[in-house]
């Protein structure tokens, strides 16, 4: 590490500024990246990390500033030119070619930008195979993306980004949605990029993993640098603690016996769901009392989203789902939602071309004219950034801001039963703390019932009165959060 730091930087960003209309997303940002270095970029949601990355890559055109790569200023070039100079970027959300195999998807990244490329040569296939192996996709390289688990799709994105042997790799939130074990594997992969002499720019909200991985880190707030340095120094910085890290999450569970209703408000009994031949839920039974907070903990692909979609009426199932004594079978999703069972889906499902405010108003359209502004006001207290972004198109929000908006829209419906599917995805620690406080306040001041699906147990446990563990389509454990660590924590903690 120290030996490499003597070399001249491969990438120098000087005074980079990016404005969107009146909003300055990145303000006068400067940083240097050396070969064989992992440089972290942290900051709260909307602080401009992704925008900085996209401006370097040429996906967004910098308003002002220089991006100097090996002595040449590349600011303002189109993305495809910058890519060919030796840049690779891993995207958080991408749409792979679903009818092609993993190998073919990787091969696309290797093709020249030429109209004469009518036949793929053998060398190309071999190189694609080698890269697939390199990132751990050897076993699945002839399968098609829709049949792959989430982590493998992310591996494929890594593979595409390093396919043409780039000197600079930009990685936006590689750990989001991965399990603990997978985060470990991805950390190793990313540090192997460093060992190969690449310069890596890394953005992620998983503070622990970022801190363990980076050589240096830059903290941003409102588009500007707060400080740069070694991870431990930066994490100790007063401002960073205040605007990004926040405090610890704390609450306590209430025993199940404290819930007065004899028959639980929501009962899921022996529910099974099949997708074609694959069984996504196998005889799952859970119950939730009025006012109770229940977490369903499970890794990717365990079946959490399927369970929630069945409850919300989106999927056909066998077994029974009963709410307040009435079977939900055959009730339309719209009606289920209208009666107060609201799901905030993992995929967010925002109206991308409508403004933040319009999205929220749609959520609250059934409220009375007096209640609606009050509810919005309350929501803006919870997520202040949404107030500032009211007029912005939802699809241009940062990842974390979109997550806040999705949760916000669900809360606008004043649900009686709220289902939150992976709400922590892409949220900065400080926002997690805010969300946590909001949930706690809801718990104390209303009789809202919450069903929370998470693989992030540090968030799921403190908010739960009771926890279910879902594994491979089955419920394998049920109990109070206090016992979780000892009895079921392996693989999560």
């Amino acid at each position, binding site marked *: 590490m120290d030996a490499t730091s003597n070399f001249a930087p491969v990438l120098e960003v000087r005074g980079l500024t990016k404005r969107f209309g009146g909003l300055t997303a990145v303000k006068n940002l400067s940083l240097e990246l050396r070969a064989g270095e992992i440089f972290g970029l942290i900051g709260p949601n909307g602080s401009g990390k992704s925008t900085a990355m996209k401006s370097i890559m040429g*996906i967004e055109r910098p308003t002002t500033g220089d991006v100097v790569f090996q002595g040449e200023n590349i600011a303002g070039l189109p993305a*495809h030119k910058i*890519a060919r100079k030796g840049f690779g970027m891993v995207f958080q959300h991408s749409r792979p070619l679903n009818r092609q195999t993993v190998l073919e998807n990787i091969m696309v990244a290797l093709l020249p930008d030429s109209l004469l490329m009518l036949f793929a040569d053998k060398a190309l296939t071999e190189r694609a195979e080698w890269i697939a192996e390199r990132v751990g996709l050897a076993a699945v390289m002839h399968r098609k993306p829709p049949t792959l688990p989430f982590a493998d799709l992310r591996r494929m994105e890594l593979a595409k980004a390093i396919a043409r042997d780039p000197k600079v790799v930009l990685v936006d939130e590689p750990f989001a949605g991965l399990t603990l074990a997978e985060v470990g594997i991805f950390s190793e992969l990313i540090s192997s990029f460093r060992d190969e002499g690449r310069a890596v720019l890394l953005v992620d909200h998983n503070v622990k993993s970022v801190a363990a991985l980076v050589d240096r880190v830059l903290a941003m707030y409102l588009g500007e640098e707060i400080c740069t340095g070694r991870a431990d120094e930066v994490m100790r910085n007063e401002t960073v603690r205040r605007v990004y890290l926040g405090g610890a999450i704390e609450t306590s569970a209430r025993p199940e016996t404290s819930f007065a209703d004899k028959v639980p408000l929501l009962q899921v009994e022996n529910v099974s769901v099949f997708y074609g031949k694959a069984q996504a839920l196998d005889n799952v039974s859970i119950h939730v009392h009025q006012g109770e907070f229940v977490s369903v903990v499970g890794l990717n692909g365990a079946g959490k989203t399927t369970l929630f979609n069945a409850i919300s009426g989106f999927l056909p199932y066998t077994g029974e789902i009963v709410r307040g004594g009435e079977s939900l079978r055959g009730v339309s999703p719209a009606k289920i939602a209208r009666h107060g069972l609201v799901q905030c889906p993992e995929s967010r499902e925002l109206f991308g071309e409508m403004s933040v405010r319009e999205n929220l108003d749609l959520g609250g359209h059934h409220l009375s004219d007096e209640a609606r502004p009050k509810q919005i006001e309350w929501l803006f207290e919870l997520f202040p950034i949404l107030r500032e972004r009211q007029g912005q198109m939802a699809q241009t929000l940062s990842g974390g801001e979109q997550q806040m908006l999705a949760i916000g829209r669900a809360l606008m419906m004043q649900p009686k039963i709220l289902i939150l599917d992976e709400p922590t995805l892409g949220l900065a620690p400080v926002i997690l703390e805010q969300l946590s406080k909001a949930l706690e306040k809801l718990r104390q001041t209303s009789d809202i019932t919450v069903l929370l699906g998470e693989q992030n147990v540090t968030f799921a446990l403190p908010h739960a009165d009771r926890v279910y563990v879902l594994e491979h389509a089955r419920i394998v454990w049920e109990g109070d959060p206090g016992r979780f660590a000892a009895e079921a924590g392996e693989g999560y903690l």
Partner: protein
Amino acid sequence: MSLFKTRLFWIALGIVVIASTLPLYVSGYILGLLTVAYYFGVFAMSWDLLFGFAGEVNFGPTFLIGVGAYTAGIINHEYGLSVYLCIFIGAMASVIAGFVLALPALRVRGPYFGLTTLVAVLMLQNFIVVFADLTGGEIGLTIPDVITINASANYWIALGFMSISAAVLYGLSQSPLGLVLQASGQDPVQAGALGFNIVKHKLFAFIVSAFFSGLAGAMLVFYFGTASVGTVVDVAVGVQVIVAAVLGGRRTVLGAALGAIFLIVAGEFLRPTGELATFIVSAVALLVVLFFPGGFLGAAMSREARS
């Protein structure tokens, strides 16, 4: 998959061989019908290259077809150049018109591209009506020459032309270039970050599409002996091309040809039912799109993939 690819090749070859024997035992009426259907097949395949692979909805396939058809027709009518030269010039005119249209249109995102292409059709239609002296206006343009008057020969030319177009377009769609095109249609931002000049690739697809559309359009008018708005320019004709492609199966290229043949032949056989014909064909198309969104070939292929 690779097994299926070779299977697909043999099936296609078999169909073409059988189709080429038709003139030996079917009536001239049916041959004439199929001749038109084959040209439509090329229209639909060209359209699928743009929609299925480049991800751009061209609402104005008849702009490209019409420019090719009318250019060839007018040159023949005015200057009496040889048929083949006229056809070639028609195809080139279509390429140029396609380039001029697509270059600005591809810079706008989303539905605006489609709207631009639609406007282009309306402009072409207006042009033809306004400059009636040159174009024959609403009555249509009479074309002095024909390729041949032999029904069988016309049939074979159309079949051969469709087969070659299919081979080229399908081959292109399966080549690395087709992959890049598909990636650009699917996720333009990422394709750019992978180092591909999206505009260049899409423009190329548009030009290829224009070339085959224009060529087929020009050949069609020499078969008909006339060019009229109702047969090669009208928005309704364009809609038929689009329906054919979607019916046959998006992103399959070959399916588009099947869809076109189905539409034309079914429309003709239902002609005795009068106005009802259009309705029945549309209803079938709607049902297929609703229940087999992959179209004829898409449905067949996913069954193949499952087994």
